[in-house]
């Protein structure tokens, strides 16, 4: 009888060992072929190029791993990701925006603390990591490995400035309006606005400008109060900033069809427009079209010389918690922290978020210099650190302020109402 028991225990152990080894074969083995799926919402941005090249380089290093990069529509990317998470049919790795976006979707993401060696995480810009962690504290562990440092930034055409007699880059509202006047007189469209180049869909996205308006109104330490409601959106400072912004169109500084124009990027690339507010994802496009004529400037949406710049690791890759290939997915994330990855990201015209690396694009370097040499304060992207519902209402209402269709007060009231409608756990006194 005892002999029978030993035999049964041995058989059970053998079965268990077989089960373990077969499970490892499908997920943990480094020799069996594995396909990693990555979802991205980059469209035609330079980020898409960078990610594809990262995948190629990773495949070259790991012969048994194939990386399938799937481009998803930007419009409803997060809804798709969420729906796929419910059925656990989504990707192994997914592009994720940082800030409150990450925290909103963290239920199906993996906290990478302890999953990726601390030495690898230490290579990433700590300011970048913190915005992907609970309470925006890097010590809590990131959910996202940032792809790049992004700037919401202004681009200007140096040749147009010279021809119009604008000798220095404007640093406040007064100088901006003066420059507009000169540029207009010289036959240029001073600032072009529209819905072209928006990854989110065919509509004017106002949060690049709104970020700078809030930089002009509040120090970075106070931005959390916009989240909590301690600084109401309807505050006099905010209203004054929006009123100045609306003057851009009413004073003829912009095109007349700000809400519906689709080729605003083309206007800037062709030299028809002298300035544009955009982001680093289009730097390469502009430098290719305008060469050394293009330069970066900080949108001067401030009554006094502007002292802050939006420098933020806005996106990166995160691992889904239901991924069947977690070891390989983690290998890819680790690869993103290497100097080889930094070179690939830089080659795509982006700014790597890895310590000690640099950018070879002079316009991107100029942006980095705003912080490192001009000692401007780095701000996060405002739309990543205020509630999604408020961002949504702002995205709807703010463009109409620039267009002159509604008043600043009306738009800000709508945003404040939206904030007030949120459940109390979404508008606490500090970030979640």
């Amino acid at each position, binding site marked *: 009888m005892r002999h029978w028991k030993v035999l049964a225990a041995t058989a059970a152990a053998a079965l268990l060992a077989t089960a373990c080894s077969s499970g490892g074969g499908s997920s943990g083995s480094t020799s069996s072929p594995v396909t990693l799926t990555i979802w991205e919402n980059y469209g035609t941005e330079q980020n898409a190029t960078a990610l594809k090249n990262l995948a190629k380089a990773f495949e070259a290093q790991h012969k048994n791993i194939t990386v399938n990069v799937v481009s998803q529509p930007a419009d409803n990317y997060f*809804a798709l990701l969420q729906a796929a998470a419910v059925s656990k049919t989504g990707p192994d790795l997914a592009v994720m925006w940082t800030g409150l976006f990450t925290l909103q979707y963290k*239920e199906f993401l993996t906290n990478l603390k302890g999953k990726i060696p601390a030495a690898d995480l230490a290579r990433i810009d700590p300011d970048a990591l913190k915005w992907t962690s609970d309470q925006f504290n890097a010590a809590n562990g990131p959910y996202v490995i940032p792809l790049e440092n992004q700037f919401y930034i202004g681009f200007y055409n140096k040749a147009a400035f010279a021809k119009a007699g604008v000798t220095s880059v404007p640093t406040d509202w007064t100088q901006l309006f003066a420059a507009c006047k000169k540029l207009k007189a010289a036959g240029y469209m001073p600032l072009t606005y529209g819905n072209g180049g928006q990854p989110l869909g065919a509509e004017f996205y106002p949060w690049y400008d709104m970020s700078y308006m809030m930089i002009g109104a509040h120090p970075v330490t106070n931005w959390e109060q916009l989240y909590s409601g301690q600084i109401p959106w309807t505050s006099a400072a905010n209203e004054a900033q929006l009123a100045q912004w609306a003057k851009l169109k009413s004073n003829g500084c912009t095109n007349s069809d700000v809400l*519906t124009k689709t080729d605003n990027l083309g206007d800037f690339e062709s030299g028809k427009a002298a300035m544009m507010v955009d982001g680093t994802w289009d730097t390469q496009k502009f430098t290719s079209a305008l060469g050394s004529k293009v330069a970066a400037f900080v949108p001067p949406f401030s009554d006094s010389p502007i002292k802050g710049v939006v420098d933020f690791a806005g996106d990166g890759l995160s691992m889904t918690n239901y991924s069947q290939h977690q070891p390989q997915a983690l290998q890819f994330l680790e690869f993103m922290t290497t100097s080889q990855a930094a070179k690939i990201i830089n080659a795509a015209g982006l700014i790597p978020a890895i310590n000690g690396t640099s950018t070879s694009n002079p316009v991107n370097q100029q942006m980095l210099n705003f912080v490192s040499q001009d000692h401007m304060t780095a701000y996060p992207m405002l739309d990543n650190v205020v509630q999604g*519902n408020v961002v949504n209402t702002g995205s709807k209402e703010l*463009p109409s302020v620039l267009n002159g269709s509604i008043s600043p007060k009306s738009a800000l009231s709508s945003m404040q109402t939206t904030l007030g409608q949120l459940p109390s756990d979404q508008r606490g006194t500090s970030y979640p």
Partner: protein
Amino acid sequence: MSVSEAAPGLARGSAPGQTARPRRSRLARRRRRAGILLSLPAVIVVVALLGIPIGQAVYYSMTNWNGLTAQWIGPSTYTTALSDPIFWRVLENNGLLLLSIPFAIGIPLAIAALLNEHVHGWRFFRSVYFLPTAVSWVVIGMVAVQFFALNGLLNKLLAAVGLGSVQTNLLAGQRTALLALAITFIWSMLGTNTIIFLTGMATLDPTLLEAARVDGLKRRQIFFRVTLPLLKRFVQFSFVITVISAFSALFSLIFVMTNGGPGFGTTTLEFFVYQSAFSLGQFGTGALYGIILFVIMIVVGLVQLRLIRSEDGEGW
């Protein structure tokens, strides 16, 4: 003996002065049982595919469901939604769009009346007017964007006829964008409604029209006094599908033309459901607005039914 034969008053075997339930024959009972059994699969399908999802939607509308987890909040979600000015703005847009219904019915009716007169080239024009029905809403939306744009066809036409001063970017203003949407909606309903009315006119007894002519009625009088009353059923049908379309079929048009903007100027309740659930990932809120839309559609349907039945003198 059938139930009807057992009446009046008493069923077989019941004592005088005692009210008894009428007895059914064995055949009637078997038929009834068979009827229930045969309809059971359909009932199960309806309950499974409609009843349960509607029940779930009602439940989720009172939660903060994000697709993964749901936390019960309760009926207060409805009071919160009803106190949101954006919600009322969205409902107002739905209401304003209803103003386009008379045009969406009246214009096709007039076109159908002309085509029914077999004017020169009527077959060609019948195909032309039917065209909007054959074109996808997405394509219609994209063409409309180009048409209403600042540098679009509409403004070029205005400039060409010397009305350059009234040129405007209809899609840039909140109210004007809704007007542009309504115009596009009217155009897109043109084909369907024209065909409905043409079909209706083809079913009319020509002798009635002939009699009206003999009685000396003019063409216009014949249309309003004879044709239109006889087309009542077709007008009612057209009204029903146009109202339903205005409430629940404009999504793709709005998505392509304005994405609900500028502001919330062209956001309808249907579009609001999509935005809440799929743009913001708040599926509970999306379910809530979906339930409200569902209730509104029931009310609209009942009112329409009431109007139709009461005109027939039947009531409900």
